[in-house]
């Protein structure tokens, strides 16, 4: 086994599945998770969403948490995905001395805050949820359920939060700070950001169409996903089999606008080029790009231009899986990392659903899912956040 950072566990929960197996099935069979609102209590029922098909009460039961406990939807989803990742990596059964939990979120406990805010201001009945509001509280709920973490941190870079948690985990491992790191993110849909995105007029009233000329915005999704990262030495010592390598990562800033991407996709260009450089790979070695591809007019054009700048005339298959899951915002970097790893291990290209009209300004069209790809060796995953927080991750087969 080579040196570097290995993925020894993965867990995922989204609108298309409650674990890796269900997620893989949905991707293979092209079953979208986008549908009418069911769990969020909002007046904006006109927007299709990608909700996790469990109520909070059901998640509490699965986790054997009493429903009187102070929980948030974000942390419950995080717990379920983290448990799947830990189980696969045989943690804590095959012990690692120092394990970090690094989780990305932005809404944190906002689902409860928007429900109880007037109580927060006027009386003492919901004080426990004031303390559960912030991002760190959400991560600590996950940490305390398992009780095995010696380092606990929370990243909040909007829609690249989980991707940056993965990047930080790799840094902590390389610097010898921890022996294993559970990294990723979680985020539920809230009225707060559904309405926020609505005021920005970037929500599609139909199921979204990433990389289509007629795309009209994004669909919000929700979910959680975590990877277990560790060094080769740790995986060997614990006797666990790695799924793949995290071969490269880069975080850059578009430095353009608080809510819009630059016309030349400079930040996206630099994050993809940076991840390739970190991995020591040439563009033509990349077999698949899981794009950020939100379905907004602005993102898909900017990202498409950046992809062309990095890959020139030889663009590998590109797809956005947000047409399956919706945009899971802070969790997206984790959700799409797990999807990228599934594609890498199973040697298939997830389809870019609902594409029919090429974007005129772009020289490529997204993958249909029917591509004959042979063996996938290297997969690139993009996650871009508000404010231009761009991160690209590269996953590679273990040779």
């Amino acid at each position: 086994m080579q040196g570097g950072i290995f993925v020894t566990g993965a867990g995922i929960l989204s609108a298309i599945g409650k674990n890796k197996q269900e997620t893989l099935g949905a991707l293979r069979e092209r079953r979208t998770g986008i549908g009418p609102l069911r769990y969020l209590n909002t007046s904006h029922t006109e927007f299709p969403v990608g909700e996790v098909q469990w109520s909070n009460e059901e998640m509490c039961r699965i986790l054997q948490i009493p429903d009187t406990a102070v929980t948030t939807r974000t942390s419950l989803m995080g717990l379920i995905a983290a448990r799947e990742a830990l189980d696969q990596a045989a943690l804590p059964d095959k012990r690692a001395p120092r394990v970090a939990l690094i989780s990305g979120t932005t809404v944190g406990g906002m689902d409860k805050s928007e429900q109880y805010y007037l109580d927060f201001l006027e009386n003492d009945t919901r004080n426990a949820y004031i303390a559960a509001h912030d991002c760190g509280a959400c991560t600590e709920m996950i940490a305390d359920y398992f009780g095995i973490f010696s380092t606990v941190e929370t990243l909040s870079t909007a829609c690249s939060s989980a991707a940056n948690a993965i990047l930080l985990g790799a840094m902590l491992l390389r610097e010898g700070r921890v022996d294993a790191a559970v990294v990723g993110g979680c985020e539920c849909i809230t009225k707060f950001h559904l309405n926020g995105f609505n005021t920005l007029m970037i929500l599609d009233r139909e199921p979204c169409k990433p990389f289509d000329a007629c795309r009209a915005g994004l669909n919000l999704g929700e979910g959680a996903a975590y990877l277990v990262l560790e060094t080769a030495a740790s995986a060997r010592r614990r006797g666990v089999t790695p799924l793949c390598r995290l071969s490269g990562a880069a975080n850059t800033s578009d430095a353009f606008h608080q809510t819009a991407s630059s016309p030349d996709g400079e930040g996206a260009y630099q994050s993809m080029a940076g991840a390739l450089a970190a991995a020591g790979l040439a563009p033509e070695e990349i077999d698949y790009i899981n794009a950020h591809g939100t379905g907004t007019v602005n993102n898909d054009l900017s990202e498409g231009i950046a992809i062309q700048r990095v890959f020139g005339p030889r663009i590998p298959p590109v797809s956005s899986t947000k047409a399956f899951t919706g945009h899971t915002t802070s969790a997206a970097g984790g959700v799409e990392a797990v999807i990228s790893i599934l594609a890498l291990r199973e040697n298939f290209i997830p389809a870019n659903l609902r594409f029919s009209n090429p974007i005129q300004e772009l020289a490529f069209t997204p993958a249909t899912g029917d591509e004959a790809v042979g063996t996938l060796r290297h997969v690139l995953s993009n996650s871009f956040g508000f404010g231009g927080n761009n991160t690209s991750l590269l996953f590679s087969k273990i040779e």
Partner: protein
Amino acid sequence: MQKDIYIRAACQISAQPPLSEEWLDAPVRYSEPYVRAMDPDYKRYLEPNVARRLGKLLKRAVLTARRVMEASGVACPDAIITGTGLGCIENTGVFLNALVREGEELLKPTSFMQSTHNTISSLIAIDARCHGYNSTYAHKGISFECALLDGYLQLKAGEASTVLVGAHDEMTPEYFVLLKRAGYLGGAPGGFGGETAVSMMLGRQRAGSLCRLRGVEIAYRPSADEAGRILNGLLQASRCSLDAVDAVMIGTNGHPRNDAVYAEMCPVLFPGKPLLRYKHLFGESYTAPGLGVYAAATVLHRQRIPGHLFVHAPGEAPRNIHNILFYNQFEGKNHSFILLSSCGE
């Protein structure tokens, strides 16, 4: 390659006079439970359109960032990293209040656009046109230390040679009420809820720097033994002994629940060491430790510890200040140790 890491410059806006070190000799004292930062006259420092467009938190962040970039001669740092416990809560509060009071039909995008935690780091990058590494940590009372640790590791790993690290939290009257209800603020007279805006530049250049940053450790729910081992590891890696530490700066704030943890941990971790404080000057906020590290760096630079910083009046103040250990804990769960040394060390 020069491996040592320095805090090259730092700048604050807080309950003390802004953009200055007046607090050393003429600290402003407060007896009220809630104190907002003393804002400078932004019109003097920021372009009118910037000053008009941004809320207070963002104005403070942009101004302190610009000042340390200028002071350290760095036009565009390789990395920009912010710690913020609550992010842009003023804008969040505006949008949330409109949502819960007026419903979902009449909302406006302005406050939402600047409500995410990463607005601060992104705005600094947009302002200085920096395409480098950009990140934000939001983890309650150790948000700043997470950011500082990342910056320290970026430098140590050779990924960056200049890193701008910030600690930024505002406190709206509304959120003060909430945090009081939650039991975090307002526990006793003597401490106050405050606001934090501090930027600092990390780099490798010793000349003109405030102090050396020797190491950063964070830990989650360590036992007292584990905390001791982490501290020893930090000191050993820095080739520094506890004997060589001149003083320990801690986060006592007058709140019984908070101060009890220090009362329990300090005699075990650093028996007999002079203890310094900073929250009597700057108040309590999730990223107040950023101001503590700034204060310790300033003391090392000036080579003088003013009497009001001592938790207990010292027999004799140390003459040459070589090493200051910074120790923070939040609710007994999150702990951090930071070792700072004078540039000569």
